[in-house]
């Protein structure tokens, strides 16, 4: 994902002389081609993320489209007030890019587990919060946020993720991207970020009669598209590598209940929210190990008998 990101950003920067890239002393063996191609529009600001985001706001006030690149929590949680106040409140054209979403840096421990930022960022007014599901979506999303005026966040996984789409999907703001469609399916998985890849492999292996949608946008979510999907399926699982509180599944539930209360939906589907159970994990482990341990799996879903109550996610 990170390689696709930088290649796409280079292509965008060739067309758009306003694109400027800052990094917080991270991006070794990733960012060098951009720095070589556009030395006057690249800067490693050092290990100082609050300053990086402030600088980005300042550069954007002068007309630059500024990308800030670092790992997980550092350009997000560490600089949350700068993102809220300097960037979002001033509608600055700043794009925060975090590599290592979820447990991508599993063995590196909790400092590097990026499992709260989607929820925190989506509460900030005007913030576009994204987590593309494969390299093709990263390509589409990098181009999209380069051209979308205003504050954006993009969560990347790491490297080597398999492609799910032959071509980069066409993106509209908040748009939902179909990944798998099976005739007669009454259940669907809504996934975001790298969990889309897991879900695609799992459903394929099981030959499950379940559709799959990628939500590259966690905020906003296109409510017309969501309403249409909610009307089509009786069972939906949301799947994210993020704490359950305030995450992607919460965002889906909020929108669904709004649609119901507004009369845009006649009924709600049964929604199983699969997310990290609001807990830290202190042991080392690969991304897959940690996902297993924290229950980020579709095991036992969808229920064989729709009348059987689904297990409550804690």
């Amino acid at each position: 994902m990170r390689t696709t990101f930088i290649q796409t950003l280079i292509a965008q920067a060739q067309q758009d002389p306003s694109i400027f890239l800052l990094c917080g002393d991270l991006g070794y063996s990733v960012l060098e081609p951009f720095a070589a191609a556009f030395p006057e529009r690249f800067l490693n600001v050092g290990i100082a993320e609050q300053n990086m985001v402030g600088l980005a706001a300042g550069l954007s006030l002068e007309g630059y489209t500024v990308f800030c690149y670092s790992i997980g929590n550092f350009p997000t949680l560490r600089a949350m007030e700068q993102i809220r106040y300097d960037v979002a409140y001033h509608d600055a054209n700043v794009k925060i890019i975090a590599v290592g979403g979820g447990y991508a840096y599993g063995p590196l421990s909790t400092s590097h587990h990026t499992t709260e930022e989607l929820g925190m960022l989506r509460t900030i007014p005007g913030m576009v919060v994204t987590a593309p599901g494969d390299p093709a979506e990263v390509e589409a999303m990098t181009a999209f946020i380069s051209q979308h005026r205003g504050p954006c966040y993009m969560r990347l996984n790491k490297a080597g993720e398999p492609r799910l789409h032959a071509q980069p999907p066409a993106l509209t703001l908040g748009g939902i991207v179909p990944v798998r469609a099976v005739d007669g399916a009454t259940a669907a998985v809504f996934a975001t970020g790298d969990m889309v890849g897991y879900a695609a492999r799992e459903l394929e292996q099981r030959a499950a009669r379940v559709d799959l949608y990628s939500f590259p946008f966690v905020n906003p979510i296109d409510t017309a598209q969501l309403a249409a999907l909610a009307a089509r399926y009786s069972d939906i699982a949301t799947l994210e590598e993020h704490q359950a509180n305030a995450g992607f599944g919460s965002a889906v539930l909020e929108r669904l209940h709004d649609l119901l209360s507004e009369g845009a939906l006649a009924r709600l589907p049964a929604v199983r929210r699969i997310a990290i159970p609001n807990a830290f994990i202190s042991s080392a482990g690969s991304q897959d190990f940690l996902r297993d341990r924290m229950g980020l799996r579709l095991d036992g879903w969808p229920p064989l008998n729709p009348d059987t109550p689904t297990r409550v996610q804690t």
Partner: protein
Amino acid sequence: MTENTTELARRIRLQCLHMCHSKRASHLGGAFSVADVLAVLYGGLLTADPAQPKAPQRDRLFYSKGHACTALYAVLAETGYYDKAELDTFTDNGSYFTSHVNHKVPGVELSTGSLGHALPVAAGVALAGKRRAAPWHTYVIVSDGELDEGSNWEAILFAPHHSLDNLTLVVDYNKIQSFGSTAEVLNLDPLADKFKAFGWETLEVDGHDHAQLAAALAKHGRSAGKPRVVIAHTVKGKGVSFMEHQLAWHYKSPDAAQFAAARAELLQDSIGTPA
């Protein structure tokens, strides 16, 4: 210029006093301490056109002391960015004149109020100016207490490393922060030595002496390749005898008697020191 800026400083203080009295607002002490710095900058030193507050060739001023907003709102009114009567809406329901600085007000570059934000943003603006060889200059005014914020020191390290000689930082060093003196709460001294060690061209001035301020804030005659810091030694509550050096005037708003007494002093005295 100094004659005019002294009078401008007096009008800023009178306006701040009026706003804090009529709207029961706080932070008068810090507004009075910085009034002379603002008067010298807006009284002729800044390249600025109040009719075109976003003109590309303007000097950029970032006012990080968002809590001492009355002084900035007052100087912008006094120099023609908007009608002084608009300040009557200060803190009213629906007014853009919030009691921390609001960028919706003409002439304000950045909303501030959470401390330690403006200097990094201004460094980004100065960096853009350097990359484009722009002729304009970037000024930042910070309070002394907000130098407790680590984000400032990230930018203080950054600016000399990237040779931002188009950036001038003014520290309103009135030596009182919100819960005590800076010496008691978190000592900044030796402040000038810290900036020198970080690679800044470091000047110390009497922050109420307009000639010293004008010389220190000038854009010419600077050390190439270095940002400049002007440590302005000031007095919290400057200009009103019973407010000077008093922590309480970080919070209090003057009652009718205090308002009358303060107003009389401000009208009587020449507060700033002209050349």
